């Protein structure tokens, strides 16, 4: 075999396919590396000028050329956290229902609608947020929270209807389809004999679901959550429409805030001056690293579930 020239080896379909698909795979890696390098180089000016204090200062003043990323990092993390707090229980609950409890007749059309929701453009969710969620928040939910839980610093201050909480809720609506869809797939891939064994040992349907199937699929479900988190961190349009676009750090979820993706989208087109532009690009770098790490974790988790699934299934 080794005596055959490269060209003649290439004539084998398998080899050609191997080379071509390898190039495709390599191009993805290349694009990612290029992205990081480009973001790193373009942000050289603010990195040198502000150093680590970029992450710790709160002032964002394009005129005085003072740039601090802290309020944006805070806003990004808080809205994503609120979104996950709402979306995780709802999403996993729905996934369990669809995978384990719902009859096929109900489960299939519901899954179709969930996939549809995942494909809705984010600006549509933003409009939904502005015209439906914001008024409901201002008129009912925020006053109600203030009256009942107002002693907590989380629910104080004027109720504008927009802010961290509203942005988190809109994000939750956006990421729930992801959690449901991926979790349902993972739950359905749990081998049938696992369920049968649990039922044979005398457990009820719910016990077999909650104590056997869900733990079995745990890493995969975690993967779906990380995927949702990455999406929540990077969402731009829907967030900027409901967050209030004010770089503040406040314990109150009623307060208007700002996220990294939103400030880049808002200010990039009119950013004059190299330092200003560089600061926005450095924000992009911060966001990229955050989502990159989380996405990587999610993929790893997915991989682990499938491997462990088949392994345990055979044992």
């Amino acid at each position, binding site marked *: 075999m080794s005596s055959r020239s490269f060209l003649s080896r290439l004539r084998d379909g398998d080899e050609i396919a191997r080379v071509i698909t390898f190039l495709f795979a390599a191009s993805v890696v290349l694009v990612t590396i290029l992205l990081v390098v480009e973001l790193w180089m373009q942000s050289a000016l603010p990195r040198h000028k502000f150093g680590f204090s970029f992450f710790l200062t709160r*002032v*964002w*003043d*394009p*005129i*005085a050329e003072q740039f601090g990323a802290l309020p944006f990092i805070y806003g990004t993390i808080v809205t994503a956290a609120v979104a996950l707090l709402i979306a995780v229980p709802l999403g996993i609950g729905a996934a369990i229902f669809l995978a384990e409890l719902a009859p096929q007749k109900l489960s299939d059309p519901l899954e179709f609608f969930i996939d549809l929701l995942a494909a809705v453009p984010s600006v549509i969710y933003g409009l939904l947020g*502005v015209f439906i969620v*914001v*008024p409901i928040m*201002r008129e009912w939910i925020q006053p109600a929270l203030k009256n009942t839980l107002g002693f907590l610093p989380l629910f104080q201050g*004027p109720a*504008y*209807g*927009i802010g961290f909480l509203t942005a988190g809720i809109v994000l939750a609506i956006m990421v729930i389809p992801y959690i449901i869809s991926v979790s349902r797939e993972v739950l359905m891939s749990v081998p049938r004999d696992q369920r049968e064994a649990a039922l044979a040992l005398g457990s009820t349907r719910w016990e077999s679901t909650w104590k056997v199937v869900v733990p079995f699929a745990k890493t995969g479900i975690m993967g779906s959550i990380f995927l949702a988190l990455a999406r929540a961190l990077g969402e731009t349009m829907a967030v*900027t*429409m409901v967050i*209030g*676009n*004010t770089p503040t750090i406040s314990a109150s979820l009623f307060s*208007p805030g*700002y996220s990294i993706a*939103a400030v880049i*989208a*808002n*200010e*990039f*087109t*009119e*950013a*004059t001056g190299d330092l200003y532009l560089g600061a926005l690009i450095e924000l992009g770098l911060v966001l990229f690293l955050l989502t990159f790490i989380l996405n990587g974790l999610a993929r790893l988790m997915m991989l682990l579930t499938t491997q462990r699934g088949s392994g345990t299934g055979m044992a």
Partner: protein
Amino acid sequence: MKRLAGILLVVLALGGFAFAQNRLLINGAGATFPYPMYSKWFDEYHKKNGNTEINYQSIGSGGGIKQVTEGTVDFGASDGPMNDDQLKAYQAKHGFPILHFPTVLGADVPTYNIPGISAELNFTPEALAGIFLGHISKWNDPAIANANKGVNLPANDIVVVHRSDGSGTTYIWTDFLSKISGDWKDKVGKGTSVNWPVGLGGKGNEGVAGLIKQTPNAMGYVELIYAIQNKMPYGKVKNAAGEFVKADLASVSAAAAGAVKTMPDDFRVSITNAPGKTVYPISSFTWLLIPSKFSDATKRDALKGFVTWMLGDGQNFTEALAYAKLPPEVVAKEVKALSKIQ
């Protein structure tokens, strides 16, 4: 299949031939505010001069300045004049200066949503600065109430709304506030994006308008054209002569006429708070940024031809699109300045 390929070839060849027949493409980029006006102009001009096609990308004023400085477009457009540093950078890179040509006028208007109040409110410059600095936080503050005798203003907190995206609208608004309030000038300054002392940010005119419509006791600023097209209520503003003037096409044009005496030869002038009784004080030019030297003479002549037409017949298209036209004094000055392009 072969026939299809043949047809395609012929079409391509013809297309290439037509393209080669001195079709001239001029590229520009910049401000979004005058985009509807510019696209109308470029379209009309193309109808008259079939050989000249002007392609304009409304990427924002900052982008326009950047692209024309880098030489990737033939001309730029901006809602705020280039500052001295930017001019120097251009000169250093190209070896010749860039010129400003005002095209139309725009204005910002204060708009508000106070439940139960439909009256047209009067705003003094002091009240506007106070509100946007956060010093004036209630609607019944004497600074607002004294200018609105007979209107029963509520004791509610004012919810300030501003633009969150960088924009020429914000530039005009903050330029006006910087002129009439030393406090504003020191603490905030003027620019397309600023560090707002108070308020919520809405994306675009529509974002600001949406927030104001939805939030009781809110106030903010939008472009005059946007307010007119969407039939939004807006207030009068006290001008430098002490008169409360409502923004309309005439009072905005008057601002340019009022500033004509003090207009520098490079047209880089702010006409906010301009003198004159009928002047609306929060008005501004928007500019084309044209290099003073072209290596391609046909391109130069075509662009000069367009600007000449725009200053003449072109101005007749402005009011249908709710842009205020240039006063004749400014047009005359610009026609003279055109000879600087070589």
